[in-house]
């Protein structure tokens, strides 16, 4: 049960948040098709730290960029998006 520091609400329980995707896999509206499909279907899936996009879905709705270790679950930084 992670405790995620929401920049707007303060620390809240993981359950209020939703993981969206790794930060490098955002498909931009104007990406060319091959670029888009590569972004969508290729993940580094590191056994370590990755930047991720989360949202405080059951709270204030703030989108977050979380730098989080996928092995230890430690959250290094949280920035509002």
């Amino acid at each position, binding site marked *: 049960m992670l405790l995620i520091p929401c*920049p707007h609400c*303060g620390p*809240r*329980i993981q*359950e*209020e948040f939703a993981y969206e995707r790794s930060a490098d896999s955002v498909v931009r509206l104007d990406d060319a098709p091959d670029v888009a499909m590569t972004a969508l279907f290729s993940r580094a899936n590191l056994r370590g730290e990755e930047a991720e996009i989360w949202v405080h879905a*059951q709270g*204030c*709705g703030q989108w977050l960029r979380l730098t989080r270790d996928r092995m230890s679950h430690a959250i290094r930084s949280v920035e509002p998006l």
Partner: protein
Amino acid sequence: MTEFFVSPAKALFALDLWDAADIVPRDIVLPGPGRALLGAGGAVLRVGPRRWWLDGAGLIADEALAGRGGLTEIGGGWARVRLVGDWRDLVMQSGLFDAEAPAFDPGAVAVTPLCHAPCVLHVRAQTWCEVFVAASHLAHCLAHWRELGWQQGVGT
């Protein structure tokens, strides 16, 4: 006394400001994160990074926003539940939010689910708290609270 009082939220509006730069406009007094301001016409609650709730009609006129934001009526979607009594204990049996934190004092606002229902908590006094519950979830929440020994009071 552990009682809840229920009524529709009715005159409730979402105020959205378009630009981060406008937060907070100097000419309109708006509460900061996690807080509410009480005025004669009602309360203004901060519920998100760029969103406030205006609990009361006519608290801010569209003209005052001068195109910097918009108002949207949302009151049909929320029930207003006043919890009178040991509401902190009830909240902490219904969710995973720290309602016992000393800083969660009168004037504090929190958006957090209770009984799996979207809720907005507005602390009005040490002895009572106003909870906006998503209307479709109301019956389920009240049933749960009754099981925890709370009773519906008379009136709103």
